[in-house]
């Protein structure tokens, strides 16, 4: 019996000692794992600390992290999108980042995108937003305003071929619809006194939003814009030469090149607002980056790795080359900004709005998409549909 106790004791001590050796576990998607694995070798050579990089599909990381983190079995670092931050931080799963002097190396808007409740929760890496991608063979001159776009669309549109001037995912898909609503002042959540997002101030049915929505409704009614377009349909039309322009993001560029299309990237045409001025459509900006688990046993190590090994031009450039998006790390952005695609998407992005990251956003998408489909189907006027959506959102959020 004594012997057994000794063995058990020995095992305990042994395991405890084993647990002492620090090791970082990172969950990353397939575009980042190769870079991180190379970096892990370098990090181990300098520090002796091992880094395990686990490859998980990007859209799986959030759910698996929520399940794993509270049990202590989760990773130390995850790769993710800034709009996860609200949910993860509200659940107490993220550790705030103290950038120290490194803060100056990141674009202000990308750091802000990762902030929630006044704290920063992520080291931003790449930003993305949508703009116009057009087929140069079909668009002689890119329209600057929506009126010019309509003139062009009336010339070229022929549903029997089919041929459309502009196509974007709208089946329903509020993400790709938002630039039209935001051009003249529509917004999702307005700021409160402290500058944080106020979930009870929903600006999806204000005058500016209705103007954009009316334009959308009119185009569908006139037959200039096909309704119910999905991702696959949009691709098929654009790659088949049946659509002159699409509203999409950097994720479409590689396939556009592969399809052999001579493409250009341009700003979404401006929309004339009620006061006669032209409003630039403001797309949502998405930022991807690295976050540290609140349940990590190696937080300082994780931050050291992120701020001194990830936040370098070498790593950021390697990440950029795997998946070209405008880098949030300014020294790296300087190196790649001469790329015409990056510059063009960046130009639209300068006017963008970070997609709200507060968890209340969960109540917005469904109601908003319903409104878009009601308008597209002609079952409701933009005013009816969007005002009802705002009511539903506020009811779901228990706003007064």
């Amino acid at each position, binding site marked *: 019996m004594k012997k057994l106790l000794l063995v*058990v004791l020995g*095992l*305990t001590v042994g*395991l405890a000692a084993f647990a*002492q050796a*620090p090791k970082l576990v990172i969950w990353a998607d397939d575009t980042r794992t190769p870079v991180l694995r190379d970096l892990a070798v370098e990090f181990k050579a*300098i*520090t*002796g*600390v091992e880094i395990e990089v686990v490859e998980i599909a990007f859209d799986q990381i959030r759910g698996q992290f929520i399940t794993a983190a*509270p049990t202590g079995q989760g990773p130390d670092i995850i790769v993710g999108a800034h709009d996860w931050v609200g*949910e993860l*931080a*509200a*659940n*107490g*799963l993220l550790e705030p980042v*103290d950038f*120290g002097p490194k803060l100056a190396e990141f674009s202000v808007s990308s750091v802000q995108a990762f902030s929630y*409740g006044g704290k920063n929760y992520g080291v931003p890496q790449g930003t993305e937003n949508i703009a116009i991608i057009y087929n140069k063979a079909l668009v002689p001159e890119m329209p600057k305003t929506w009126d010019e776009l309509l003139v062009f669309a009336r010339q070229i549109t022929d*549903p029997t071929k*089919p041929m459309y001037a502009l196509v974007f995912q709208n089946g329903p898909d509020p993400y790709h619809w938002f630039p039209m609503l935001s051009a003249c002042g529509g917004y999702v959540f307005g700021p409160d006194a402290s500058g944080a997002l106020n979930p009870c101030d929903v600006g999806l049915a204000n005058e500016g939003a209705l103007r954009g929505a009316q334009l959308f409704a009119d185009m569908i009614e006139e037959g200039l814009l*096909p*309704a*119910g*377009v*999905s991702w*696959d*349909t949009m691709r098929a*039309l654009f790659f088949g030469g049946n659509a002159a322009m699409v509203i999409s993001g950097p994720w479409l560029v590689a396939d556009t090149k592969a399809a052999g299309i001579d493409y250009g990237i341009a700003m979404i045409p401006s929309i004339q607002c009620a006061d006669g001025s032209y409003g630039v459509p403001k797309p949502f900006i998405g930022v991807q980056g690295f976050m540290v688990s609140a349940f990590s*046993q*190696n*937080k*300082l*190590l994780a*931050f*050291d790795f992120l701020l001194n090994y990830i936040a370098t031009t070498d790593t950021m450039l390697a990440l950029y080359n795997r998946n070209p998006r405008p880098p949030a790390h300014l020294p790296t952005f300087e190196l790649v900004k001469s790329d015409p695609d990056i510059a063009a998407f960046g130009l639209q992005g300068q006017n963008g709005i970070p997609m709200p990251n507060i*968890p*209340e*956003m*969960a*109540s917005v*998408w*469904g*109601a908003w*998409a*319903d409104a878009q*489909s*009601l308008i*597209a*189907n002609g*079952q*409701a006027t933009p005013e009816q*549909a969007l005002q*009802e959506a705002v009511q*539903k959102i506020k*009811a*779901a*959020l*228990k706003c007064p």
Partner: protein
Amino acid sequence: MAGREVVAQGAKLGLLALLDAAAVWAAVSLLLRGDHLLLAVLAAGALLLNFVVLSRRAYPLRFLLPGLVFLFAMVVYPIGYTINVSLTNLQTGNLLTKSQVIAQLEGRYYLPPDHATFSYWAFRNPQGELRVILLAQDGRSYLSEGSQLLPVDLTDPRFVRGTDGTVVAFDDFTRLSLAQIYQSLPALERLDLMLEGVHVRLATVREFGTYLRKYEYLRDVDAIRDLETGIVYTAREGYFTSPDGVRIEPGFQIYVGFRNYLDVLTNPGIRADFTRVFGWTVAWSFLTVFFSFWLGLVLAYLLNDPYVRGRFFYRSLLIIPYAMPAFISALVWAGLFNTDLGVINRIIGELFGTKVRWLQDPMWARAALIFINVWLTYPYMMIVSLGALQSIPKEMYEAARVDGATGWQRFWTITMPLLWVSVAPLLIGSFAFTFNNFTIIWLVTAGRPAVLGAATPAGATDILISWTYRLAFEGDRGNQLGLASAVSIIIFVIIATISAVNFRFTRALEDVSRGV
């Protein structure tokens, strides 16, 4: 014979011994991890296994036990778990347990107004003890002594200087290299040193800094005190809440009794939309089963006729919708039904010069959904009917023919009653499955088209399960798992009731011979 028995006995005992060894190993590691619940389950399981194998009396259990284990693991446990979750407030913001939240809050610090940072040297002695020398920016230096930091004079000869003039050793302690510091980070990170009432902790790999504790848990009043502002946050509704209603995030899980059920049953919005959604759900399940059964049966009847040539070929062709993954078929059909660009509307346009607003008009969207689901389900019905048809004795038909029965009569008086006995339970099962067929709805229409004036996000083609998905995951701050569990239990009760009534009505499970 005896020899073989000995070998069999030996193999059995050997296998059991191996399993027991594995169980002991697992038990030790569970004990070390402090997972007592799993340990109890493991112990009970191992004892049961030994009893079943070794006891003669438990011999029949050997064949029942695997089934019982799976029944427990796949049916009883998930139901119990769902019921348990339905009684909690599990949702975004209330994910962690209370003790996890308290531990997290007690580990939070804030920077004092005169925040100071220190560079440091870390040392270790052969016994593995860690000590640090901190160098303040004003030139003073401190040595850790237990959890205290004491001023120290580094010119003391006990401190051995290296070639660069820095301290490399003292007493039996030697300085850690940067790589060694990295290796010892977890231990260094846990150091909580006190200097004149202020906490000094590792701030980055290269620096210590001064901190003050932010929160303190008051056990006797179950509250959190903010040590910076003095505000006391009491535990209320799953959050530590200040007297003026400010909540500290994160919140924690609590049991809320039947509140989730009451929320569902008394919410005016939910009650307003329930009838419409429930009606469509029943129609959707019934029509799918009805059409797919008749289509499947007719095809099976034709293909069962020995005079039809190329039966094998037709059967293989007709089985294709069943063999293709439903995910892909559903998405393909959604594309085909697209109003402006879909092939179906192109054909209709060519033939009739009109456009059907599939997936946009509520009635057409429902029709399209039922069509797609019938397409996905009829092969199953066909296979089932084929099997049942082939089991009907040929002599009965011959006898009927001799008696002068027409084909129609043979079908209604011989085929149908005999078929019904074996197929009816499957139809009820199919009904229950379709009732909850979230996938098809979600992939084809996602519950849309939207209904103007609906109180909740309930679209024209939302069935109960997709509607509750929207309520639970597209409401409030998302992921309202407590509410979702309550709704699944309610749906479970509804389906159980419908199925029970069906079984009663069709007498499907009653003795086969009575139906003949």
